[in-house]
């Protein structure tokens, strides 16, 4: 009886998630009347704006990931090692981007960093890109912090740190050679989540007027019928590809298997 319930729940879940996806995919293939084709995908790939916005978002995602890792890994490590009492506060701070809408954050940025401010980041394209990267890092913070913190939980941070110190290692060596390689899979999962967020983000990029992939998807969605679902399928493929990469890295990382 329990098995029947379990299978029913599983099938309902699959239908809930898979059916809309299948419907969307099918619709994206129906651009040519009366037959299935990849015309919508071809149109998307032929559009130069797709490549421009996608590569722009990809570069910014890379920058966001690097900044996020440099910010989150040492912070989460330090909190675990030296400030465990500050953990609830840090967790609360990292959760704030989930409750504060992106539009509020970006308006705050614009007020703080406009051309008449002390730090006029919005005055140049590069400055705005830096600002956008910071904004993306803020949006990805809850996911990145949790992923890294979960990774740190699987290792004995304090003892490994002390062992490395007793062998003459300094903080940078410890972080780079001991801590980071041991939470690499967690960092990667945080990085891929960041990538997914950055690729699809609309509000910040649109309000800062940057040529990102999110505003392009919105533009396409407002003016075309078949290309938007094709773009959504492409976005899903990227996300799933990233998830597959996480699995692959875990599999090839020998020492990670010990934790399974």
């Amino acid at each position, binding site marked *: 009886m329990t098995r029947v319930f379990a299978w029913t729940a599983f099938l309902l879940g699959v239908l809930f998630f898979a059916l809309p996806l299948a419907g969307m995919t099918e619709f994206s293939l129906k651009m040519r009347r009366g037959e299935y084709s990849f015309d919508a995908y071809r149109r998307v790939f032929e559009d130069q704006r797709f490549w421009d916005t996608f590569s722009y978002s990809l570069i910014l995602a890379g920058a966001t990931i690097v900044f996020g890792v440099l910010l989150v890994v040492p912070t989460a490590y330090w909190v675990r090692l030296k400030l465990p009492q500050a953990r609830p506060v840090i967790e609360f701070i990292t959760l704030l981007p989930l409750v504060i809408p992106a539009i509020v954050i970006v308006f705050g940025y614009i007020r703080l960093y406009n051309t008449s401010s002390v730090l006029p980041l919005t005055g140049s394209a590069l400055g705005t890109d830096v600002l956008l990267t910071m904004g993306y890092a803020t949006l990805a913070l809850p996911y990145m912090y949790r992923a890294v913190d979960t990774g740190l939980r699987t290792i004995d941070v304090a003892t490994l740190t*002390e*062992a490395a*110190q*007793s*062998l*003459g*290692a300094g903080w940078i060596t410890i972080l780079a050679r001991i801590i980071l390689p041991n939470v690499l899979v967690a960092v990667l999962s945080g990085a891929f989540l960041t990538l997914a967020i950055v690729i699809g983000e609309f509000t910040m990029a649109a309000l800062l007027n940057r040529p990102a992939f999110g505003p392009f998807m919105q533009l396409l969605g407002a003016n075309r019928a078949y290309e938007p679902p094709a773009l959504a399928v492409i976005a899903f493929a990227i996300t799933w590809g990233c998830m597959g990469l996480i699995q692959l890295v875990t599999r090839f990382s020998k*020492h990670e298997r010990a934790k399974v």
Partner: protein
Amino acid sequence: MAFLDLSNLEKVFGTNRVVKDFSLGIDKGEFVSLLGPSGCGKTTVLRMIAGFETPTSGSIHIDGQDVTAQRTNQRAIGMMFQAYALFPNMTVADNVGFGLRVKGIPKPDRDARVTEMLQMIGLPDLASRFPFQLSGGQQQRVALARALAPQPRVLLLDEPLSALDAKVRVSLRNEIRQIQRKLGITTIFVTHDQEEAMSISDRIVVMNGGIAEQAGAPFEIYNNPRTRFVAGFVGTLNVLTATVENAEQGLVSVEGQTVTLATGAITGRKGDRVALALRPEAIRLGRDHGRPIVLPATIEEVHFLGSVIRVRVRVAGTVVALDTFNRPDQPPPPLGSVAEISFAAGDAILLPD
């Protein structure tokens, strides 16, 4: 000044004084154990030597150099932890070579040293394995090799055998001692296991409540405990209440028997009560030549331990434990039977208040 000199160390956490005025000098090549119950401050002392904790007051000198304010990575110490603490992302060879790499030793020299270390611990074939592919004993051997590879000035062992099973513990502790003797490295071993401490140490420091109650060779600590705590903590001890008969002549009475202790061993007046302690191996079941003090007893418990049989008997109101060697022709006494125990006055330890 001793090679490792700890002088007037104090450590306060909040309002809790964990280590109080702790001083100790350790000679080069000496193996010293810090022994005591949980919370006695032994690990804190070790962590202060390692540099993981900063002393509230006092100083630490290694080879004449004041290292009190130095960071851990500048102290040239080696350390073994209870939880092995091997780096999970590195192979055995990389783990052993980590300290050498941090020191900037060139790869060929590093590889040679790693091979030498792995041979020393008897695991030359496991260089390419990861820690999760090793048993607990193997991991701790690798941890020892890793700690010794950069040739530290002092080796610190923080209960490294506690997580291992009994057989591996004994073999590994002997191995650690052999290697320590061979290399002549000054070593401090923290443990709460008195048997472990006694079996491998040149000197034991018994700690209680943040202070060193007594320091000395295992033989001296066991046979001449200076405080009641040391007597009770190191080995099993039977405490009998005696009444002073003549303090000047060292005469006390135990359960109606007069016992002559060394002249001047006791102070006090006639009728005062003193505590006499006896180790289980000093007491015989039945009468024995050279043990003139005989007391009636009832057998309460018999524990067969293989080569030794531990018997608990009741003497008046006190339970006394004694050890006898197992002999196939002499079965253990039945429970509840009436017997006698005997001991010599010279084996009795007069416990201070």
